[in-house]
């Protein structure tokens, strides 16, 4: 029986190779079962450059923001008091809303004693869904069938700051699958937390440099604080120093894969070729990575 596995690929530092790892892992997992790929970096989605999906659905995403009925409002100030983001200001004889500051928590309209506040939609971006071809594989009873990876990503409206509701919308697009791969944004802030919070395993991609180590420490602390099982993949192995290895040992973080610093890999990346497509020898390594992650998730 196959285990359902939900794996998030994250990193503290940007540009370490999250998408390289996420796309190759998804393509290889397609040999073992159904896969859904979610590019959660809605500020700068890039996985589509490698998976080249066929987009079949596109929809606008709105988040709920308050709308005040000034006739019913008694200026009691409860809404402004509960808002942690100052998105609503109650003056002596009017109420102002600042939709761009609202995080959509619903507190103001739930708590308004006069039911003077209702929710209205504010457009924050677009989600797109489709599928990407893995590669033709022979399956029992389905000769020559092309296996697919379900693909979903989002585009945050330019100038928009609220990415978390859009990431949630991307996650809602995903169907049930044997494997769900989430490509998280870089960093350790709210958008990353939203991307990794329900993952069985979080893969932290880093590079063996002082910058890579510094941000790996932050990302590992975040994963630990969230109670997530974490593992590490080192990209550009061969540069920098051995301190990332030492850190993984000291924190008991399994180092599951090292991808060497190799000009040919960078060239394939620049052409938009997934690592396992450009270098089929990596298929076995990513299959092994997948098995290790399933093992960690079961623990």
């Amino acid at each position, binding site marked *: 029986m196959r285990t359902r596995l939900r794996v998030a690929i994250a990193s503290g530092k940007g540009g370490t190779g999250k998408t390289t790892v996420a796309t190759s892992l998804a393509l290889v997992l397609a040999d073992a079962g159904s896969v859904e790929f979610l590019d959660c970096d809605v500020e700068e989605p890039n996985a589509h450059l490698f998976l080249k999906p066929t987009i079949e659905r596109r929809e606008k995403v709105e988040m709920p923001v308050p709308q005040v009925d000034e006739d019913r409002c008694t200026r009691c100030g409860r809404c*402004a008091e509960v808002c942690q*983001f*100052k*998105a609503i*200001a*109650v*003056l*002596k004889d*009017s109420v*102002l809303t*600042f939709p761009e*500051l609202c995080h959509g928590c619903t507190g103001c309209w739930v708590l308004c004693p006069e039911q003077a506040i209702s929710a209205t939609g504010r457009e924050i971006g677009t989600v797109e869904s489709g599928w990407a071809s893995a590669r033709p594989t022979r399956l029992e009873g389905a000769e020559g069938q092309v296996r697919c990876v379900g693909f979903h990503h989002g585009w945050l409206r330019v100038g928009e700051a609220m990415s978390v509701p859009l990431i949630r919308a991307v996650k809602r697009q995903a169907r049930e699958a044997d494997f769900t791969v989430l490509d998280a944004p870089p960093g350790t802030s709210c958008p990353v937390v939203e991307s990794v919070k329900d993952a069985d395993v979080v893969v932290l991609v880093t590079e063996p440099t002082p910058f890579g180590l510094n941000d790996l420490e932050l990302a590992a602390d975040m994963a630990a604080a969230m109670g997530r099982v974490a593992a590490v993949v080192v990209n550009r192995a061969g540069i920098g120093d051995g301190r990332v290895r030492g850190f993984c040992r000291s924190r008991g973080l399994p180092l599951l894969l090292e991808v060497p610093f190799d000009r040919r890999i960078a060239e394939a990346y620049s052409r938009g070729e997934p690592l396992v497509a450009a270098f089929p020898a990596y298929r076995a390594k990513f299959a092994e990575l997948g098995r290790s992650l399933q093992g960690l998730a079961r623990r």
Partner: protein
Amino acid sequence: MKIAITTSGTDLDAPVDPRFGRARSFVIYDTESGQWSVLDNAQNLAAAQGAGIQAATAVVNAGAQAVLTGNCGPKAFRTLAAGKVAVYTDVSGSVREAIERFLSGTLQPAAQASVDAHSGIGL
């Protein structure tokens, strides 16, 4: 009428604070009686966001009809405008000098915000 002057101190001889939302405090001055009081704004100094909105709300609800300050950002300006408070930016010197200039009629109200959002952070 009441006017609000941003200040980094607590009396009429203190300097005008160039920031609105993150001013240390406001002197609320009554032009008819010459009486004044201080409105503390310390809780907004370290706010991550919304300092201007909060400060403007406090000024409107204190009954002021004009604000004298150095700079004012867009959200504070919108809030003050909604509260029918005239905003005078580019005011410096002491609070007393600012009040004198206002009373002599030489100040011109601003038609819009003088700086971008979050300009007062870290100053």
